[in-house]
């Protein structure tokens, strides 16, 4: 089964609003996760300009030796990306599912301030259920 190392959500200005790590590989402290988030935000923006193909919306997949990084950008500029083991399947569907959870349990929460770090219990509970290793395969719909 696909192993996810960590999940990041960054707001449209590049600030990290949610970080969750799921394995010992790739675990980071707060400062490092903030750095990765702003680094990825900048790289994503630059890649839009550098692309040889017009109409490019930014990097969707980064493949390296020891990990894959899948990124999904919503129409509003919020980016969801997941660092997982190489060759992991159904990550795009997982990211879209996380986006659905975000629109439900974060955006419909009256106590959530836009662009601020996410502190919503329901979001955490549902995300944990979605990411359990043996469930990821079923999200491929």
């Amino acid at each position, binding site marked *: 089964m696909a192993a996810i190392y960590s999940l990041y959500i960054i707001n449209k200005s590049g600030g990290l609003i949610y970080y969750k790590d799921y394995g010992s590989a790739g675990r980071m402290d707060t400062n490092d996760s903030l750095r990765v988030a702003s680094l990825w935000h900048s790289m994503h923006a630059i890649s839009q300009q550098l692309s040889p193909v017009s109409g490019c919306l930014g990097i969707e997949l980064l493949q390296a030796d020891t990990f894959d990084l899948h990124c999904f950008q919503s129409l509003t500029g919020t980016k969801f990306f997941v660092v997982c083991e190489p060759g992991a399947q159904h990550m795009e569907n997982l990211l879209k599912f996380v986006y659905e959870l975000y629109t439900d349990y974060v*955006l*419909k*929460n*009256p*106590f959530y301030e836009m662009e601020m770090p996410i*502190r*919503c*219990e*329901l979001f955490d*509970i549902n995300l944990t259920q979605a990411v359990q290793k043996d469930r990821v395969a079923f999200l491929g719909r």
Partner: protein
Amino acid sequence: MIGVGKIKQYGNVLDKPLTKGKQEVSLSAFAFLFSELVQYNQTQVDNIGELERRLEDAGYAVGARVLELLCHRDKGNRRETRLLGILSFVHSTVWKVLFGKVADSLEKGTEHEDEYMISEKELLVNKFISIPKDMGTFNCGAFVAGIVRGVLDGAGFPAVVTAHFVPMEGQQRPRTTILIKFAEEVHCH
């Protein structure tokens, strides 16, 4: 004119029949509207107690109107005079119309004579809401408590209605109880 069907024109809007209307409304649309209601009230108050009261008052207005509508539509303009009758009306008919299902349970309080409880695993209005830790026992279900109070008041059964979270063993999320405490004059059998 060719093709124009016969549409009965009503001179007075009050003569038009009261239709069943759309049975369903988008849950997301309601969730956003309710979220905005809560956020707006948060800006107007200084403390949580006041916020609860404001939500309750908003619900009270809904309850009063729902009672009138349902009495006309579903009960044939008959007035409910028994306590258990009005409680089961709230528990079944009102819940069905507002939330699409009957409430999970209706119980009589064990400690006091005039207390009743309607319980739900998760109130529809709370479906997407996570209360921050620093808000303590605040429950947006105060809106629903207000609706119940509006219905009961309009029907002639004044009561104090509040919404509470009741933690359940083995469940991550607490269930919600609407506690109804009837006024003195109601409980004279």
